[in-house]
């Protein structure tokens, strides 16, 4: 009730009075992070639920899923084993009660802490020196270091607490690894490092170090005994640096000693800036050593007693208290070989110990006044390292190669090519242009020499390190003749610059080989232009230096093989092929034989289509192999069932087509056996097949592609046909590429069967002649075959195929002297003659050109239709006839392939001339006509003769 009233009241009230009534002051739970905020972005945002992972604040995975352990806090925090809670075995603490007693509380607490708590505890701990590092009470024996600080003689074991604390800072831990190692190697505390020395040497060493050996050792008799032994070398006494010792001067740096100030030092004489720098450097050096020396002297004689323990510590006899040591050379001592540092090390020959002390720091905040007549010139400082300094340090600046030659190492392998050697000329030019863009821009745009001298118009040679310059000398020369922008003058200057940078040429003083040169415009370069040019050279050297080492091996020359053809980018577009010829081997020959410009022209099919003469010219028939299931679904029998894929392939009936197209049956009145190779192949197939009947039947019915393929040629008989057998020699550009028609052909290595096999197969004939050609027996063999076939042949058009071959046999001409010429060039008329005459539509088509087109068209159509219906009728009624076709094909498979092969390799197969001269053909034809008339008695005529 009350709430309803309140609600009504709110509703009635105006917004201003109760504007915040809807506001909620209660928040439950943690608000979800803002989705917009990239920081709190949910990493699981795009993951499905089962891939999401939950992490705690420390980024650890603690939720593992129910079946893999559940919430793993238990394991990680308390349980202690992955498998679960392991009950701890009882262990008596009786033996180690003392230990357990004092650690129990802490460890018990620790055992309940997880990693976070432990980390927290660790972070809350104060860092302090552990007990092992705390300074133990000084040992009773004399410690050299302690002695320094505490001034404790062996006799005075107590040390002041202040110095003890100080010493604790420096005192090394007893278990330093270095010391341990040294001890392992036989070193004892207090000994020097090095091989053992004789007594004499030791004495000498002591003198050098300024140590005094024990009086006992000095004894003459002792020397006699001692000379029998080797001794450990003396320890080099440590020198404490000054500033550490003077704890009161907290403001001073290490080794600082108040001395003459800078102004005083400068006041000595007029110095250049450089000299000042050098001097101050020297002063610093001096301070470190020299002043510590003085400190050492300050320390007093008794403080500087160095104990040297020799030959072990079993006896104190050899212990020697070092006496007052004054190894420091006199500050103003002339440079000599005897100079040595405070610790006794000799000053290197050629060096001079600088002992000049400087006064205390200047209290003045002002910079020292520059010398009179000094003008600021930053350019001079910049030029110094490249010219004078590098010149100065030339002797030392050997690169690896130079060192190698000095050491007599074998010469390194030749410098690997630069990346830029692999670049194309164009790319190089672009690069060169990019690097020289500034100069290139400047050069043409300089109108004249600037009237006012530029403020920085001073020759500045850009620094280039020696190895880079050397490498660049061997690398690509951006201005050489091999480049795209040859500029001999610039190349010369570039080389000079590189040589200079590589210190290959000596430059005396400030005379540089560079000077302003004549620009092509006739003007002289200004200094700034020269500077720019040099800068450009330096850049070019950086860019064009060869790649070094491993990287060089990763690049291979892109343009090394001029033999490799350039692959054109983009999609490969096959050249337009004659659709009428695309189905078979003949087509490929025709396409190959066409001239390039002919290819560009309209194909016969195109011509026909444009002329509106659709029909054979535009129709191509090829094998279609429907899937078995498709046939089933269509309710038809699989037409190619049981026929291997390669048997039908693309070209219908391989050898048959070729045989037909190349005159196997010698149709059209030309001489039989003109195409010997093909004829033979076909005959082989013929022989190996189970019989002529089977082979001829499908020949007639199932080979419509034959005619279709042949038609374009037969139709334009008048025009000279392109050389047919002119198989294009594969050029280097086309081999193995997309437009290589003969791609992969060589892999099908075909070897012709030796002659004796042919002989073994075909030699059973009586009238075989050994001296004849290979094909002779075959052709002659066909004679009985013919007689066998004639009665069984059912169609009239079968006969001409056979007759022509057999008739040709006696008139087998001699092989052509130039078989390849005759093989490759075929007359149109011969081509037409090779056309298989047993295919009625084809022959009609050819004849149609001569006879009236209209009638032929009609006839053709009707005949064609008849053929088609016939084939289907056969399918229904004469099942066996159609079945015979694939079977026959299969059996003739080998021969077909052989024939195909022969066709392709015709130009290589010289022993079997594939064709005969046209004139011989004519003669043969005439003969054949007579003979044919005799043999057949006009009983059968070719299909073409019907028209």
């Amino acid at each position: 009730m009350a709430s309803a009233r309140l609600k009504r009241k709110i509703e009635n009230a105006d917004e201003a009075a109760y504007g915040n009534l809807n506001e909620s002051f209660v928040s439950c739970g943690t608000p979800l992070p803002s989705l917009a905020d990239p920081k709190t972005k949910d990493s699981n945002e795009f993951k499905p639920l089962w891939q999401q992972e939950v992490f705690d604040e420390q980024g650890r995975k603690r939720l593992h899923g129910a079946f893999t352990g559940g919430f793993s806090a238990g394991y990680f925090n308390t349980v202690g084993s992955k498998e679960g809670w392991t009950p701890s075995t009882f262990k008596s603490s009786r033996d180690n009660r003392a230990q357990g007693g004092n650690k129990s509380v802490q460890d018990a607490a620790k055992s309940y802490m997880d990693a976070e708590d432990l980390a927290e505890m660790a972070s809350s701990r104060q860092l302090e020196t552990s007990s092992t590092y705390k300074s133990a009470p000084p040992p009773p024996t004399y410690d050299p270091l302690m002695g320094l600080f505490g001034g404790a003689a062996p006799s005075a074991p107590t040390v002041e607490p202040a110095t003890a604390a100080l010493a604790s800072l420096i005192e090394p831990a007893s278990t330093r690894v270095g010391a341990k190692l040294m001890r392992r190697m036989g070193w004892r505390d207090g000994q020097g490092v090095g091989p053992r020395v004789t007594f004499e040497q030791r004495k000498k060493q002591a003198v050098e170090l300024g140590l005094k050996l024990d009086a006992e050792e000095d004894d003459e008799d002792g020397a006699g005994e001692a000379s029998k032994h080797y001794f450990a070398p003396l320890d080099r006494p440590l020198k404490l640096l000054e500033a550490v010792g003077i704890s009161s001067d907290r403001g001073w740096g290490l080794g600082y000693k108040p001395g003459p100030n800078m102004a005083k030092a400068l006041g000595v004489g007029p110095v250049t800036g450089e000299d000042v720098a050098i001097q101050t450097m020297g002063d610093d050096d001096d301070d470190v050593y020299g002043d510590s020396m003085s400190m050492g002297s300050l320390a007093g004689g008794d403080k500087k007693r160095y104990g040297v323990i020799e030959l072990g510590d079993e006896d104190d006899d050899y212990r020697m208290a070092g006496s007052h040591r004054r190894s420091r050379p006199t500050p103003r001592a002339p440079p000599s070989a005897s100079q040595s540092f405070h610790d006794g090390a000799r000053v290197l020959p050629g060096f001079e110990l600088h002992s000049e002390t400087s006064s205390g720091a200047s209290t003045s905040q002002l910079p020292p006044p520059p010398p009179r007549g000094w003008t600021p010139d930053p350019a001079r400082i910049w030029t110094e390292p490249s010219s004078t300094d590098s010149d100065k340090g030339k002797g030392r600046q050997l690169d690896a190669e130079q060192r190698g030659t000095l050491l007599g190492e074998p010469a390194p392998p030749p410098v690997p090519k630069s990346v830029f050697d692999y670049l194309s000329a164009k790319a190089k030019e672009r690069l060169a242009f990019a690097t020289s863009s500034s100069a290139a821009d400047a050069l043409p745009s300089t109108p004249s020499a600037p009237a006012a001298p530029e403020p920085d118009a001073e020759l500045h040679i850009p620094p280039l390190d020696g190895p880079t310059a050397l490498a660049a000398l061997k690398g690509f020369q951006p201005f050489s003749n091999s480049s795209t922008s040859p500029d001999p003058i610039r190349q010369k200057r570039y080389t000079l610059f590189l040589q200079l940078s590589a210190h290959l040429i000596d430059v005396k003083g400030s005379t540089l080989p560079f000077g302003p040169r004549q620009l092509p415009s006739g003007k002289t370069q200004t200094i700034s232009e020269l500077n720019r040019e040099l800068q450009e050279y330096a850049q070019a050297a950086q860019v064009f230096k060869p790649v070094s080492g491993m990287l060089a091996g990763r690049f291979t020359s892109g343009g090394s093989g001029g033999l490799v053809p350039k692959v054109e980018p983009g999609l490969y577009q096959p050249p337009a092929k004659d659709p009428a010829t695309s189905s078979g081997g003949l087509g490929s020959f025709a396409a190959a034989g066409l001239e390039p410009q002919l290819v560009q022209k309209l194909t016969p099919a195109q011509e026909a289509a444009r002329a509106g003469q659709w029909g054979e010219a535009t129709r191509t028939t090829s094998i279609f192999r429907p899937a078995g299931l498709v046939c089933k679904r269509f309710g038809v029998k699989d037409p190619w069932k049981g026929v291997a894929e390669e048997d039908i392939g693309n070209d219908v009936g391989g050898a048959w087509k070729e045989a037909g197209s190349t005159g196997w049956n010698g149709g059209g009145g030309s001489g039989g056996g003109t195409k010997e190779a093909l004829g033979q192949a076909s005959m082989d197939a013929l022989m190996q097949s189970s019989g002529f009947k089977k082979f001829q039947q499908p020949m007639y019915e199932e080979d419509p592609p034959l005619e279709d393929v042949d038609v374009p040629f037969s139709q334009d008989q008048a025009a000279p046909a392109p050389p047919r057998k002119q198989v294009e020699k594969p050029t280097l550009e086309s081999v193995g590429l997309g437009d290589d028609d003969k791609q992969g052909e060589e892999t099908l290595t075909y070897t012709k069967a030796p002659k004796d096999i042919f002989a073994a197969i075909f030699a059973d004939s009586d009238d075989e002649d050994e001296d004849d050609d290979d094909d002779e027996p075959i052709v002659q063999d066909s004679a009985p075959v013919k007689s066998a076939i004639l009665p069984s042949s059912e169609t009239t058009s079968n006969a001409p195929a056979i007759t022509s071959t057999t008739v040709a046999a006696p008139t087998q001409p001699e092989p052509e002297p130039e078989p390849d010429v005759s093989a490759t060039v075929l007359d149109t008329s011969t081509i037409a003659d090779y056309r298989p005459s047993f295919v009625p539509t084809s022959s009609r088509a050819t004849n149609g050109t001569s006879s009236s087109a209209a009638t032929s068209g009609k006839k053709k159509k009707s005949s064609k239709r008849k053929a088609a219906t016939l084939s289907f009728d056969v399918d229904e009624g004469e099942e066996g006839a159609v079945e015979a076709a694939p079977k026959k094909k299969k059996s003739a498979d080998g021969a077909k392939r052989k024939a195909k092969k022969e066709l392709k390799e015709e130009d290589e197969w010289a022993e079997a001339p594939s064709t005969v001269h046209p004139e011989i053909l004519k003669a043969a034809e005439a003969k054949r006509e007579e003979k044919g008339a005799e043999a057949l008695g006009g009983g059968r005529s070719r299909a073409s003769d019907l028209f």
Partner: protein
Amino acid sequence: MAPKSRTAPRAPPSHLLWTLASHKGPVHTAVYNTGSSYFLSGGQDRQIKLWNPKSGMEVKAYSGHGYEVLGLCCTPDNTKFASCGGDRSVFVWDVATGDSFRRFQGHMGKVNAVAFNSDASILASGSFDTTVRLWDMKSQQRMPLQILEEARDSVMSVAIRGHLIVTGSVDGYARTYDIRKGELRTDFFDQPVTSLNITADASLVLLTTLDSSIHALDLDSGRVLKSFKGHKNTSYRSAAAFGPGEGSVVMGDEDGKIWGWDTETGEKLGEFKAHDRAILWTSHHPKEQQMLTASSDGTVKVWGTR
């Protein structure tokens, strides 16, 4: 040459029965069902609609395509139909429920045409990816039974009659796959072949090429018996159709005109303006004087006689 069964040619019906404008955007195709009592239309608006041409009523709309609908084909028993389009898959729909119960995926481009075989056991689809895929309707197999890859350019139309599958492709070829003979007959037209219509006796194919011509191709010989010209068809796919009894040929062209020719003689029978914009599909009732034109102006018009 033409079969004798063809009736005497009549001019295309020019009386507008219905203007059906419920498609939004161009209507790409409008096909009769088997029996030609209804028709289906598919358009750019991804909708397929079932119409009654007699009453002009929209019987049902089938939505499910994600892209435009380019091809339709009805099964012989009228229980299912197939559609295809820009979504590279072929849909098979149940006519009654309106569900697409099958979807064949595998084409790599948009699918231009679909066709059933005589018992709807095979569905052929021709696509922009130059292939024709034969899908098995009898099994649950989702892979095509066979892929016909002979075309070198987009396959624009597919027609099946008996044991023949005829495809028309932009590469200028009409390909006849003779399943029974195991033979592929390729007929070359120097122009893209955009639509196909096979006569009932599978002797002729009416195909349109983009040089503004329609060819009646004799499937046996590969000869073109007649070419029908005069209209304008240079850039769109536009289907021609046989008139009643295959005695005439009708086609709507890109100017929105409908043309009719005598199949036998090739004479022009009539021409009239039907649409404002290009006509993309023309279907003719196989027996009656009734014609459908689907146009890019978004309408399907049903033409008849008075």
